[in-house]
């Protein structure tokens, strides 16, 4: 019996050493199988009990089971230790470079003029205006005569015109769309005409092609006061601030009374000063932003509206102008240069 116990003691010591020496889960498992497995050495000790005197068997069996439990605990402990060490190793690896760029489809861009145009149309759409379109190549009647700009009238100087072979013109404003709509619909109506327009003009501040949005509202009882209300609300929405708006008398052949609308300079907040004299408003504190007025009765006469019954207002604004002010774009030619370094910014 002594020798059996001694043998058991030796096996346990050997197993504990094996467990302690196991460096990874695999070698630990090999040790576990060698000592604790179905055919392991401790099991073999139990099987060898036949050679032990019967009265000693329970004691030895109990000692074997105790040894098994101790070893199983040692294996578990060692297993946790190994797992912990491995986790530690994984967590202490090199820092991921989180500053590397993300993967995926690079995004393109929608042109800043399209975005501005959409913003303008959305705000006016909210006021009840519907969008209308017309041709870029117009006849002189719709572009001029119907808008009370007769031939040989100096008002034609206000709009340098591109002429097309065959007697047509490139529209100089989107106002002919208003005529086309009024020719086909009766009041009340509330429309915005938008699109490209063309002027025979090319310098730092003028582009031969640019974009306009024009509004027209005709109904009984529409007044100049309404025109002021609608445009003031529009300008404060598009520039997203309570900026001052002023209306001053001007002249357009198709409106009477006519007005030019100024907003408080967005650069210097109307002070006229920004690093010396403000470059945007040239020190005046005001920026000219759009033209407008009450529809001239002569225009109504051309489309057969009764100007005693109906009154209306119209306004026209340059999309480039608004985009330039909103995004601090200094040169109108950038819009048409298609330079990716410009396009990507919006």
């Amino acid at each position, binding site marked *: 019996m002594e020798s059996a116990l001694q043998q058991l003691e030796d096996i346990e010591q050997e197993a504990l050493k094996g467990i302690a020496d196991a460096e990874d889960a695999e070698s630990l498992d090999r040790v576990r199988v060698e000592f604790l497995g179905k055919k392991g050495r401790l099991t073999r000790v139990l099987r060898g009990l036949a050679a032990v005197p019967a009265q000693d068997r329970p004691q030895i069996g109990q000692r074997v089971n105790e040894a098994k439990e101790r070893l199983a605990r040692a294996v578990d402990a060692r297993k946790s230790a190994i797992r912990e060490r491995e986790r530690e190793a994984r967590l202490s690896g090199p820092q991921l470079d989180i500053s590397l760029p993300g993967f995926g489809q690079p995004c393109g*861009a929608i*042109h800043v003029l*399209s975005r501005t145009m959409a913003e303008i149309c959305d705000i006016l759409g909210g006021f009840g205006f519907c969008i209308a379109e017309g041709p870029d190549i117009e006849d002189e009647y719709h572009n001029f005569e119907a808008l009370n700009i007769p031939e040989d009238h100096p008002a034609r100087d206000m709009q340098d015109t591109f002429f097309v072979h065959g007697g047509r013109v490139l529209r100089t404003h989107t106002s002919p769309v208003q005529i086309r709509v009024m020719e086909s619909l009766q009041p009340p109506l509330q429309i915005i005409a938008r699109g490209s327009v063309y002027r*025979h003009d090319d310098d730092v501040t003028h582009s031969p092609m640019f974009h306009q949005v024009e509004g027209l509202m005709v109904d009984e009882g529409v*007044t100049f006061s*309404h025109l*002021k209300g609608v445009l003031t609300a529009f300008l404060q929405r598009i520039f997203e601030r309570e900026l001052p708006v002023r209306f001053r008398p001007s*002249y357009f052949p198709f409106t009477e009374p006519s007005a030019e609308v100024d907003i408080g300079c967005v650069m210097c907040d109307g002070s006229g000063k920004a690093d010396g004299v403000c470059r945007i408003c040239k020190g005046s504190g005001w920026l000219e932003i759009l033209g407008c007025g009450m529809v001239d009765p002569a225009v109504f006469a051309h489309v057969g509206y009764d100007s005693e019954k109906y009154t209306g207002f119209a306004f026209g604004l340059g999309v480039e102008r608004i985009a330039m002010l909103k995004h601090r774009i200094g040169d109108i030619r950038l819009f048409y240069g298609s330079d990716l370094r410009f396009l990507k910014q919006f």
Partner: protein
Amino acid sequence: MLLPLSWLSDFLEDLPGAEVLSERLTMAGLEIEAISRPSEGLAKNLVVGRIAGLEKHPNADRLSLCRVDDGEGVRPVVCGARNMKAGDCVVLAKPGAVLPGGVKIKAAKLRGVRSEGMLCSAGELGLAGDEEGILVLPDDLEPGSPAFELLGLNETVLELSITPNRGDCLSIRGLAREIAAVCGLRLKPGFDCEPSFPPAEASFSVKIEDAAACPGYRGLELHGVEVKQSPLWLRNRLSAAGMRPINNVVDVTNYVLLELGQPLHAFDAGLLSGREISVRTAAETQAFVSLDESEFELLPGDIVICDAEGVVALGGVMGGARSAMNADTTSVFLEAAVFAPRAIRRTSRRLGLVTESSYRFERGVDGGGLDRALSRAAELICDLAGAEVKGAASGILPAEAAPSIRVRCGRVNAVLGIDISAGESRDILERLGLTVGAVCEDGNFTAVVPPHRHDLQREIDLIEEIARVKGYDRVPPSMPAVVMRQNSQLPGEGLGRRLRERLRNSGLHESIGFSFCSAGMNRLFPGLHRSDCDAVQLENPLRSDESYLRKSLLSSLFEAFRRNLHNGATNVDLFSLGRSFCGGDPPGEIDALAGLLWGPRRARGPGSAGAATFWDGKGVLERALLPELGAAQLEWTVCAERPEYHPRAAARLSVDGRHLGFLGAVHPLVSEHLEIPEEIVVFEVDTRVLLEYAPLERALESIPRFPASTRDVSLLVPSDMLAAEVIGQVEGLREELLEQVSVFDEYAGSGIPEGRKALAFSMVYRSGERTLTDDEVSELHGRVVAHLLSSLPVALRD
């Protein structure tokens, strides 16, 4: 229009400062574009000097060394001009003076000789005039007296932008009248006094053959004229108003034009033939030499002034060379007339001859001012040129009935949306010079327009005047009551926004280009219009390479591409939504979408990583267009006949058999022609077709309950065969359990026989009722493959 304030104050009492005036005029519709103030750096240190002595610069042939008396002493001044002599009075800028250009005068050594100041030319002082050399002043001036005011440099000048309806504001006197009304200022006494026309016998007769072209003509003959330089005050005023002084007689006609707005012309009376002036419209095409010796061709309808020999002036535009004033002129015939605005405008625009005179006639000259202008001019010429009035001439004088307009108080308020009394409206119009009647019980009154306000014809014109003078800022803003109606949104609006969004998400950048292009670009890119249509040509292009409207958006995209290449871009993915044009009656306009892809990209689908391929473009287009087409599908057919596309790598797109556009690699000739790289993929689509489809309203399809089995097959097929043919054959079997067939690889090259390529397909089999067994699927797949092998010239790839 330049308005020197000292000149304005000849007519107005108590003129406010430039700032205040500018603000009030701007708010009354007379926009002030700029205020130019006297230069402070110049006010000091600018004096009259007298040249006490003059010699050559010892070290420089082209320079002179002047000894200049500045009133306190004589100082040396080196000068490069040659037009002065000893005894002349000149303008001396002493050290410390700052010239209008910003040059600061310092004492310095010039070529070894000390120079203490500078003798100034008119240009250097910012005065109008382009005479060579320095300014020589009258020699009765006192050396050392300040030259700043003497030269009118202390003038403040407003630059006004006058709208085309206000011809009456194109003169100092007209502006004074307007400013008095809108600013509530008092006019100087005598403003409205009738001029005293110099008494004279008629020495010329005037025959007006076309009274519509010339409703009024007056003339004065002056003798004993001595043509010479005008006095300083006159030259200063002309300069300040932006006109170049010439000689006393011409300067007076310009002075009167600026002051009263009535254009005058001075003929050399000695060069006129006969004693009759006739005014008519040219009957036939004829040549005319203007007083600046330019030749013009006159057409019937141009207004001409003639003497016995023929045309002496182009009426209202410019005088002729034959009767032009010159240094030997001693007698002058002064013309003051009114011409029909439209005829003047037609002539002036056709000949490209816009003069101060034509500009005013176009905008309407008040016929009542002829005598005032002639008597003012006569007075000045007699005074400055020692002349006397010798005779007169007179044609029909205008007798226009001034329109009388009824103003309804209710209408004024209905248009403006304010509450202004009839009395206040009446007062405003009276201030503007209208003759107003008493206010009737109904609040209405009549107003008679003065002759200078020919822009006021209708009640609405007067309503504008009432609002303008009252002040637009006195109209309170208010929101109209809007009738809510069904939203009839433009269908293209939503489409454009959705396409932009999807193309942006596919990595493309929106480009907006001009509608213009060259004839060459239109030949390269015929676009989506009928192949036989002409391009739209401009009559007056800004540049020769922009003389057509584009037939295709691709013209603009290729310009954009070239510019980006030039800027060093390595990847250019662009799209554009816009219009393309073709000739016809009416001309054709297509709303189109075009795109251009170039540069390396990651592999997506078949094909290797690297340059943009047809399939990159196809992916972009499918993602953009398919959601618009509802249940309809895009149809792709090989397109080998378009000149701009590669004949072996392009497709025609259609939907329900309707032509939509093209997609393909660019033809190598296009790249050669434009000197750009190859491997560019472009597309162009007519978006109007898309408007006829509506995005699909989706209903949920049930999610499969049983698993699918996938089998692949790799086939060797002829190089020209499209994968779509194989797929078409498979789909033609209508195998119920075959859920999907797709191509996942295309390969040609090593290991593949010449003239063939490998295509790999993937078939997905599934039943809606049970899980298919392996054997079932293999049997099915075998049948499908066998069908392909028997019906197409294809073989299995080992």
